[in-house]
């Protein structure tokens, strides 16, 4: 019995090797189909995972309220001074009236020049609370981050971001030194580790670069610098009054996030005449991203399925030709005692061989997706860098992530398609009249 099975496969292999090029091209059809299933799904997964990672970086429990500078036409600036944005009143309203808000972080960001000795760094001054480090996933490298006591005592303490520290203090230990911001000196108490910039999500939240930050207690910022800032623009001055750049609210559970965010939006709308703020709900984005991902997957899957069906048609085409070509052989085999089912099996074995080989090589081709894409990208970047630069950052940076299920899925579909499309030619072969088949030249 074993020998018989062995022989069936052996004969199938032999028949296929009679036309190596033909078999190769048929296998190629399935190979492309299977590889493209894995590739497309991996690229889709890579893109959506990246989006998901960024959104999750914001925290699924969080609601972020950010100040947005409104267009000047809609605001009446009194004497060139423009007040806008989220206020301390907003902050207390939100924290005091909403029971589901467990924690709220007020943040104020300002562009400033930091100097120590002769060295200067232009960066972002961030007034914040001690929780800031945790929420933005910043890690301490040396010293410590700001403490509650610093906040309470409005201390002139600051913490440097990695890059800022490296550039202001290339040779010294910054801890205990004082850096100057405008007219005030701040004592460095800590340096943070490097953090990759986060990219903008959902339009309402711009990307953030943490590399040139200096962090001080927000209470210190309010008392030393205040809300009033003057920007000089092409010879004219413009004053702005901004109390808070951002409030990050943490909600007690994920289930309450959507409700609470609605209340937050309502509350803010009541006190703001202009749309000078934006509310970002990472959970909402996360859900959007999930739907987008599903759609993406279905779409990619469809394209891949089409290419697999095309591969299947290739198999059918070849097998029909083979059956006609081997009519005589079918007649001989029938005369020598082959049943119809034997003939069906014989041709099915060949299509299964074709589709299994196509499927296996396709899986290998699919697994090579990541290195191939990276090589390709590098190659193109070397030959025509401007073409790469024009691509959106998602495509420039995407790392395909192979979806584990896609491998058995693609392989299974390819073999199924091989069998389905091979069945008809095989049945046709079996249905032949042996006498006619024997007479066939």
């Amino acid at each position, binding site marked *: *019995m074993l*020998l*018989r099975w062995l*022989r069936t496969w052996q*004969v199938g292999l*032999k*028949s296929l090797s*009679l036309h190596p090029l033909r078999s190769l091209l048929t296998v190629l059809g399935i190979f492309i189909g299977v590889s493209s299933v894995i590739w497309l799904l991996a690229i889709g997964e890579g893109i959506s995972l990246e989006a998901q990672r960024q959104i999750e970086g914001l925290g699924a429990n969080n609601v972020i309220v950010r100040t947005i500078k409104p267009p000047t036409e809609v605001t009446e600036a009194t004497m060139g001074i423009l007040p806008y944005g989220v206020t301390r009143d907003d902050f207390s309203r939100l924290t005091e009236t909403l029971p589901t808000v467990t924690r709220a972080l007020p943040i104020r960001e300002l562009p400033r020049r930091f100097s120590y000795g002769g060295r200067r760094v232009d960066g972002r001054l961030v007034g914040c609370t001690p929780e800031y480090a945790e929420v933005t996933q910043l890690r301490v490298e040396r010293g410590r981050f700001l403490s509650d006591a610093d906040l309470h005592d409005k201390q002139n303490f600051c913490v440097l971001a990695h890059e800022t520290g490296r550039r202001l203090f290339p040779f010294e230990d910054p801890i205990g030194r004082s850096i100057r911001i405008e007219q005030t000196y701040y004592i460095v108490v800590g340096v943070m580790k490097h953090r990759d910039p986060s990219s903008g999500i959902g339009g309402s939240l711009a990307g953030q670069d943490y590399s040139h930050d200096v962090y001080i207690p927000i209470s210190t910022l309010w008392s030393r610098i205040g809300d009033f800032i003057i920007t000089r623009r092409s010879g004219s001055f413009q004053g702005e009054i901004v109390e808070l750049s951002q409030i990050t609210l943490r909600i007690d559970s994920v289930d309450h996030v959507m409700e609470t965010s609605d209340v937050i939006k309502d509350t803010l709308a009541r006190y703001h005449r202009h749309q000078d703020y934006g509310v970002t709900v990472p959970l909402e984005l996360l859900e959007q991203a999930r739907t987008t991902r599903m759609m993406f997957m279905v779409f990619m899957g469809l394209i891949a399925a089409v290419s697999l069906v095309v591969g299947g048609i290739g198999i059918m085409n070849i097998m029909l030709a083979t059956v006609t070509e081997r009519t*005589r*052989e079918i*007649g*001989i*085999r*029938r*005369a*020598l*005692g*082959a*049943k*119809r*089912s*034997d003939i069906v099996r014989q041709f099915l074995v060949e299509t299964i061989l074709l589709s299994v080989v196509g499927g296996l090589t396709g899986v290998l081709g699919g697994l090579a997706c990541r290195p191939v894409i990276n090589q390709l990208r590098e190659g193109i970047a070397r030959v025509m860098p401007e073409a790469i630069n024009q691509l959106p950052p998602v495509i420039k940076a995407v790392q395909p992530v192979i979806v584990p299920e896609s491998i058995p899925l693609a392989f299974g579909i390819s073999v199924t398609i091989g069998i389905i499309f091979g069945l008809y030619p095989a049945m046709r072969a079996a249905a032949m009249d*042996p*006498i006619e088949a*024997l007479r066939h030249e």
Partner: protein
Amino acid sequence: MNAAVDISGLTKAYAMDGETVHALRGIDLEVPEGDFVSIMGASGSGKSTLLNLLGCLDRPTAGRIVLGGEDVTTLDDDRRSEIRASRIGFVFQSYNLIPQLTVLENIEVPLYYQGQLDARGRQRSRELAEMVGLAERLKHRPTQLSGGQQQRVAIARSLVNDPRFILADEPTGNLDSATSEEILHLLLELNAQGKTIVMVTHEPDIGRLGKRIVRLHDGEVASDERLDTVEVRIQKSEVGSRRSDAEGHSDFPNP
């Protein structure tokens, strides 16, 4: 002696363009075990139809065929395949070897469909190849062999399942005279060993080698003639000299 083949009232009619064509019109024939029957007749006399029916490749319109005690006329397709695999050995005019298989593999094909492709079966295939003089060519492909060698492979193949009888359809039709002689000697030898042989031919000299000649005419048995002993038959047949005037026959379409 038991009857290897017992045919009674065998009729075959085809519908062709709305008309019924009678290929066989009631044939009765009994072939005892160990017989060597030559079936002869002109084109269209019904030889091929009879051969197809005997080989269980086709079903009669009426009448019955009993092979070794079993009525095969009413069997379904699968069962008839089994009968072909186990009881009948085919030898064709055009050898009908499978080109992608080696000599040994070609001989093994009927075993494969009988589910007997085991070590013993393979040993038997090897012995048969040796018997027909192809022990050195087991790994060759049919295209690497001469016509006579191919026909010898076909004969070895027809014997591998130890069939009840061998059906030979113009076994020398594509061969030159010397090779024809070889093949016919091989068949005679098999017959002498006890194999029942039914051979279809339209060449009188070859037909005369059998123990018995059944002539068909218009789908009926025209004559049934028993011949002399083997030795006399060989002398009379003059296979060698026959060919020179019968060369044109090889172009004839195979009926």
